[in-house]
């Protein structure tokens, strides 16, 4: 009678795949997301009808509580805080997988079943990956929410401690696999994995967050996948591996966009090294700063403008003000485009979402590789809250820590305006020669306030 249930999981997995396929264009993406959520509903209903599921009260209360909490978070979160939100959700997903693995281990023991390696290995993997995802995501959240220092935190013997913890995970994981009834070893394993997750993310600086979040996204999928092996459920395995693949691809894209290897991001403690140098290499050139009125006069004479948004735009909530500035330029017949660096912001696609929220048509957004050749023919490049992704040192200065990272060539525009709060170096703490360059005009101020002032100044011309 229950034989149709695995078929329901197949249907659900198909919905996920079709849903993800529809995400390949902004036009069909909404529908894709709806299809994926239908797939999830199918999977949940099928599971509720399984013969083993006999008591419903707890399940329904849990679903209700979780569902309401999720809906409220999703409704309230600001678009600028999307990286934090995704980090938290990743963490919760990982935790759920680890808990399921734990419950299964205890159930096998209670029923006196001696789990084979084909079950106990996935239990260990699901627990470790899930726990690392949980604590890693919460540290990432704390950094993004500025509950703790966003910079890289490095302390003596860090690598040694991490190495020790990794060894402990191997040891206790081995113990659990050898004897799945050793519940004490299992809980220690979970605790140690939790510690590892936090310690791995603590030394990673804010600018590297897109990589971390992508990686944790992948882990949350792989944890679900391991859980699928534990309870022998194809639905979980298929869906988990789709997410795992997605996160891995994004991780790879982010690393490539920074010209760094994954190992270098995770173990490099990049931000810390760089900030130590920044003090010594303080800028020596002269800075030309201008007012909103100066900027408006130059923009009025321009024919083409490229706006380059970065994390500072998100922090200042400046997306709407910048859109207004863009509109004001378009009204004057000026060609306006937005240049998007793959690692601008704190997660893949962060800037695109913010500009979409501000009603900027997505076809005005151009990727780095496509737009870079246009800068020399562009009258004005306006950098709003972006720093490292526009740093010419990445192109020219072999001693720079970001040397080799692909950047947006804003310095090649006829005039480059940089809206920035002060001369303080950016998140990675690296000196940016763009700010003292011949053709650069610094517009000191809050991104939102300055963009608004520029719109006003243009209207007053």
């Amino acid at each position, binding site marked *: 009678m229950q034989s149709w249930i695995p078929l329901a999981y197949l249907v659900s997995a198909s919905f996920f795949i079709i849903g993800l396929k529809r995400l390949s264009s902004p036009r069909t993406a909404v529908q894709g997301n709806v299809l994926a959520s239908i797939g999830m509903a199918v999977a949940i209903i099928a599971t509720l009808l399984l013969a083993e599921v006999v008591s419903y009260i707890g399940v329904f209360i849990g679903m209700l509580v979780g569902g309401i909490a*999720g809906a409220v978070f*999703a409704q309230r979160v600001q678009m600028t805080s999307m990286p934090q*939100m995704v980090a938290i*959700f990743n963490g919760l997903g990982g935790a759920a*997988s680890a808990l399921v693995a734990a419950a299964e281990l205890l159930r096998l023991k209670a029923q006196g079943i001696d789990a084979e390696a084909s079950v106990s290995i996935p239990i260990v993997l699901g627990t470790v990956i899930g726990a690392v995802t949980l604590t890693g995501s919460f540290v990432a959240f704390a950094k993004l929410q500025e509950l703790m220092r966003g910079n890289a935190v490095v302390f003596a013997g860090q690598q040694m401690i991490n190495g020790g913890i990794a060894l402990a995970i191997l040891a206790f994981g081995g113990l659990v696999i050898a004897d799945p009834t050793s519940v004490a070893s299992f809980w220690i394993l979970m605790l140690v994995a939790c510690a590892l997750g936090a310690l791995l993310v603590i030394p990673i600086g804010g600018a590297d967050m897109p990589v971390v979040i992508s990686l944790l996204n992948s882990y949350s999928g792989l944890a*679900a996948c391991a859980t*699928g092996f534990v309870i022998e459920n194809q639905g979980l395995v298929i869906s*988990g591996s789709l997410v795992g693949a997605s996160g891995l691809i994004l991780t790879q894209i982010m690393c490539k966009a920074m010209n760094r290897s994954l190992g270098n991001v995770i173990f490099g403690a990049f931000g810390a090294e760089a900030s130590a140098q920044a003090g010594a290499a303080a800028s020596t050139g002269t800075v030309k700063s201008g007012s909103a009125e100066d900027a408006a006069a130059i923009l009025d004479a321009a024919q083409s403008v490229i706006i380059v948004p970065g994390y500072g735009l998100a922090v200042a909530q400046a997306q709407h003000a910048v859109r207004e500035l863009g509109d004001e330029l378009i009204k004057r017949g000026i060609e306006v485009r937005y240049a998007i660096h793959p690692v601008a912001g704190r997660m893949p*696609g962060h800037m695109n979402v913010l500009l979409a929220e501000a009603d900027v*048509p997505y076809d005005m957004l151009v990727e780095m590789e496509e737009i870079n050749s246009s800068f020399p023919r562009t009258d004005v490049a306006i950098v709003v809250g972006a720093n490292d992704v526009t740093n010419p040192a990445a192109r020219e200065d072999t001693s720079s820590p970001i040397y080799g990272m692909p950047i947006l060539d804003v310095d090649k525009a006829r005039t480059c305006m940089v809206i920035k709060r002060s001369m303080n170096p950016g998140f990675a703490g690296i000196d940016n020669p763009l700010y003292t360059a011949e053709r650069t005009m610094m517009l000191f101020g809050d991104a939102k306030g300055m963009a608004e002032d520029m719109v006003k100044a243009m209207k007053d011309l």
Partner: protein
Amino acid sequence: MEGSFVLMLTIFVLALFVGVEVITKVPPTLHTPLMSGSNAISGITIIGAIIAAGSDSGGFITFLGFLAVVLAMVNVVGGFAVTNRMLQMFQTKKKGA
């Protein structure tokens, strides 16, 4: 048992290939919704959570299952809802443009 493990492993590897094929076609402009959407899909672990919470295995196991149901459900509902919110913004743009 062993046979089913190999079968699961086969499904896993094939699904990874499908995932890579499908995901590489998602344009960078949709990478954030892709993350939140795939994140919601990783909430599929709710299947395991429901089984653990609903199979009457007794006290602590049921409690772990209950916790897992809550967490996975936050992931599922929150993930799909927030993805929908974002994608709607991309869509209204299309009509406005």
